[in-house]
């Protein structure tokens, strides 16, 4: 008996099916990524500490935002665009010594004795009201964070050469696609060193209601 040859399946419509699927995924895809400002909240204490650590006024940089989103920095009205510079000047001042009695040898500030002693002692205090808008709050948090990032970037370039900024190293370190363990260990050491040089100390008071 002669073999009957099976007819070949027509594959011409395969492209159409693939197109259909493609269009479905094209439509449902959201490419955007979540980006945001990372902060750490202070731990909650049931009974607030009665023993207050005394912090000298010169080591505190106060930022107050009112309900009309106006900003008072060190008791003076300030525009948002000037905040980053002012915060950097305050953190980088290095007028005195840190807790171990060492001077800040990497600071580029004016060494003003009336401003902060050392980056590890410089505290930024941020106060807002309940009526303050969220966009203003985030904009201020952004400027304060950027002040620290800029200082860390400057030191990173000085210590590790051009291109090795804090931002770049942090992005590589946080990237889950980078699998090189020795590189990550090296980056972590560098990042921790930079974080220790300019620790981010932003203190937020509970927002007042009127």
């Amino acid at each position: 008996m002669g073999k009957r040859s099976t007819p070949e399946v027509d594959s011409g419509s395969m492209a159409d099916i693939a197109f259909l699927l493609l269009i479905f995924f094209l439509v449902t895809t959201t490419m955007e990524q979540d980006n945001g400002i990372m902060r750490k909240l202070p731990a909650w204490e049931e009974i607030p500490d009665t023993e207050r650590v005394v912090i000298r006024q010169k080591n505190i940089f106060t930022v107050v935002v009112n309900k009309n989103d106006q900003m008072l920095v060190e008791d003076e009205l300030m525009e948002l665009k000037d905040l980053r510079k002012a915060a950097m000047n305050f953190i980088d001042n290095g007028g005195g010594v840190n807790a171990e009695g060492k001077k800040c040898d990497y600071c580029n500030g004016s060494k003003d004795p009336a401003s902060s002693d050392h980056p590890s002692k410089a505290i930024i205090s941020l106060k807002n009201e309940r009526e303050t808008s969220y966009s203003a709050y985030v904009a201020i948090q952004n400027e304060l964070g950027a002040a620290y990032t800029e200082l860390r970037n400057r030191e990173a370039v000085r210590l590790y050469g051009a291109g090795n900024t804090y931002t770049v190293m942090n992005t590589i370190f946080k990237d889950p696609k980078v699998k090189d363990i020795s590189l990550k260990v090296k980056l972590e050491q560098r990042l921790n060193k930079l974080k220790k040089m300019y620790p981010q100390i932003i203190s937020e008071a509970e927002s007042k209601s009127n």
Partner: protein
Amino acid sequence: MGKFKKKKDGELPQASTAALPDIVFMLLFFFMTVTVMKDKSLLVENKLPAADDIEKLNRKNDRVMYIYAGKPVKGYEKYGTEAVLQLNDKIAHPSDLKQFIHSEIALRDQEIIPFMVTALKVDRDANMGLVSDIKLALRKENMLKINYLSVKPSKR
């Protein structure tokens, strides 16, 4: 005479479409892998504030817990015109946060809980009062890592 027919001058051979499905499949697989299915429908307005000193947050990471806030969208006016919270698929009150955080913790493995990040997707027109309530609830539950989600400013 000859075995080979001579091509007529000026006639182009038909382009083969056999590789078309391959190309389309390649694109298809690309989009299939990058797709993140939307799993929550937003009941609140969500225009994020602008900031440029920002870090990436991996969406497929199960360490991230989302809290939404903003004005109710059209069709949900019964919740008022002021900014409200959205937890999962429901409009909620700040007093529901405690339960929400506990349920989110229960969903995850014990060992990743200290690394959990709370992503705040809050509308730029919301006021800080609501955000302060969220922050207070998070502090009480010891969820201290927080991320204010924002977008890069379009200008500059």
